[in-house]
């Protein structure tokens, strides 16, 4: 049955997240960007929402609620509506923990998940992107060679979220054992921060989302035991993991796009030129109506991908559609939003400038969050 209706619980969560994101994230966003640093305590504050722990099983100390990619997509949209950098930082532990929970062996779950059910923000992350032009996740250059029972990892990663503080990295790589091609050939390895051969860079300097600390990793012959391979001898469902991340990225882009739209509308009504509000000019009004159309389109594509994940179908295609579509439209909306503000859009007083930079960063990344 086709339905666009939220459950009552989802309505409540959406409302709560929206308020939180505006009150906590949006308020702090400009200073955090200027200082290239997350506000003190924001991660612990957000931790109290239980975004990660409530959807982990009771057996590891979690809330035991069913994982809902749809609910998570709704949450990510709202958080990114507040600020995408903080939204990503806040949900990075989920990126790691959900992957362990979805694809890990029982031993791996017991070993790694309890940490995410405690009182304090637990930093961990996934390393996907590689510092080469035209990066394609279906063609990873980071490799895992079998050696004895274990593996040797070699390669480079960048834009690793919260890599400055993560205790573990889940590193995506191609193994010789991998069956199939493309996304099916992806394997994941749990690499501790202190692994020999792992070099962690200083915090990277990025165009947008400057408050979000990311690092580059260099893996030189990093030797890992057999149990470091997520899912043990079965490995992981790479296509599903990537679909989760693409859907999450799409949700974040919906949030940023909506932020731009909702800022541009009252601005265009207030701002006068040539004797009337600029919103009364068709060129501006139609730019705004196009934003409205596309925020809708983007959201439905995102929800469709999330729904496919939720019903455990193959979500590769809907997630890819959601990701590529939202990437293009989010950039366009941010760009047009800036244009609606004109000279004021270029000044770092209004948040649109920040969202413009965030959009261009966010829309080339599919590996910063998960549903």
């Amino acid at each position, binding site marked *: 049955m086709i339905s666009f209706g939220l459950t009552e619980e989802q309505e409540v969560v959406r409302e709560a997240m929206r308020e939180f994101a505006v009150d906590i994230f949006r308020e702090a966003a400009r200073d955090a960007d200027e200082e290239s640093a997350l506000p003190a305590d924001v991660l612990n504050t957000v931790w109290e929402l239980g975004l990660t722990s409530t959807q982990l099983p009771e057996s590891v100390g979690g809330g035991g609620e069913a994982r809902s990619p749809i609910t998570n997509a709704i949450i990510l949209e709202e958080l990114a509506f507040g600020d995408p950098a903080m939204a990503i930082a806040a949900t990075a532990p989920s990126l790691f923990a959900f992957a362990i929970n979805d694809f890990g062996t029982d031993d791996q779950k017991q070993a790694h998940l309890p940490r995410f059910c405690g009182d304090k923000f637990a930093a961990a992350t996934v390393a996907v992107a590689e510092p080469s032009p035209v990066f394609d996740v279906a063609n990873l250059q980071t490799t895992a060679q079998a050696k004895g029972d274990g593996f040797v990892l070699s390669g480079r990663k960048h834009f690793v979220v919260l890599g400055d503080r993560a205790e573990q990295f889940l590193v995506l790589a191609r193994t010789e054992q991998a069956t199939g091609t493309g996304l099916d050939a992806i394997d994941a390895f749990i690499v501790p921060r202190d692994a020999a051969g792992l070099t962690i860079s200083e915090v990277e300097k990025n165009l947008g989302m400057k408050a979000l600390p990311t690092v580059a990793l260099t893996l030189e012959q990093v030797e890992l035991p057999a149990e470091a391979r997520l899912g043990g001898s079965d490995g992981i469902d790479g296509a599903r993991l990537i679909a989760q991340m693409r859907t999450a990225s799409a949700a974040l882009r919906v949030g940023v796009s909506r932020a731009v739209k909702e800022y541009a509308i009252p601005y265009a009504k207030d701002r006068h030129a040539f004797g009337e509000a600029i919103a009364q000019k068709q060129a501006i009004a139609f730019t705004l109506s*196009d934003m409205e159309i596309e925020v809708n389109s983007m959201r439905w594509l995102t929800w469709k991908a999330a729904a496919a994940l939720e019903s455990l179908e193959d979500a590769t295609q809907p997630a890819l559609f959601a990701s*590529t579509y939202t990437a293009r439209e989010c950039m366009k909306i941010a760009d047009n939003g800036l244009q609606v503000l004109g000279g004021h859009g270029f000044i770092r007083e209004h948040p649109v400038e920040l969202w413009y930079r965030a959009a261009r960063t966010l829309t080339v990344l599919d590996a910063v969050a998960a549903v």
Partner: protein
Amino acid sequence: MIDFNLSDNDKKMLDYVRTEALVARKYARYYDENEAEFPPEALDEADDYPGAWSMMAGRTSEDSGQSVIGMLITMAENWGDYSVRMRKGRGVGLGNAALGASGTEEQRTKWGGLLLSMAITEPGCGSDPSLVQTTAVLDEETNEWVLNGEKIFVTTGCRSDGVVMWATLDRSAGRAGIKSFLVEKGAPGFQVSHKEKKLGIRADDTATYVFTDCRIPRENLLGGKEEIPKAGSGGFRGVMKTFNMTRPMTAAFGLGMSKASLDFTREQLEGAGIDLSYGADVHGLSAAAAKFQSLEALQEAAELTVLHAAYLSDQGEPNNLEASISKAKGGSAVRTITQGCIELLGPMGASREHLLEKWFRDVRITDIYEGTGQIQNLIIARTILEYDRSQLS
């Protein structure tokens, strides 16, 4: 709960509609090339296929809502062909949508079985319905309305059994004075003329109507409310409400054809050895695959806006904004998609040996009739800006 899965019932019905649609598709080229002829009431094959709508009985809460499944069926039918159907579309004309939205119980019973076209546009008024010049004057002695005026671009205007047409009771009252009337073919003074020669949808006739002292019964005023509401009281909105279903439906017409175009293009590209499989990031693709997948995503986005507008209607929620979003999005998407499919296939895509070039022509009307894309954008912008017509036009 958010859900995009179809029930087995829904799937079965849509599979069936597509089977029918493929039969109809065989006639598509003929009625495109032979513009003077209309497709028959029912195709020869109709006897072999029970009507799809008969399967609508026995639906459960597991199945999609009436409006949603209606949109899906519309897309599936048009995936076969826009103009040629297994049977003449009883009850699916744009006028029927108006009847369903605004008609009285009696009117729905009496007129529901007829194919009704919808006549709004006039030679002078373009896309601005409030400029309607056709007049309706009540003759109290005979209890008849007397209609005078001309309507153009009446879709399915020749083969329809009747029409929902707009006329003004009082030009000085502006939009508030406009009412809809049910007029049956054969009414005295109702002349159907001039089948237009068009870029596309050539089997689907586009008529000009002339009303000259055309008399119809008093009870043919759609909805039955004869008084002219005060300006600004929203009386015109009742008339406009019709569009809340016809706009998504119009988009669905086009999206059925653009989907057919994508399917044809995929077949050809894969036949030529192009890898269209999903998974790689765009940089891992050939130029053709990247382009094709972006068109597919656009199709999906536009379809979802249509289903969203229909879903709201099923829920009894207002969907004026969402209806316009789906129409604007659909109208623009089908232009991009069909143009892109021909671009992908090159000269062969522009050959009349294949139906792709026909769909490219047919869909172009989507962004024009039932309110152009520009009109939809005005409606959307006014809604989100909370502007009235005087503030944004």
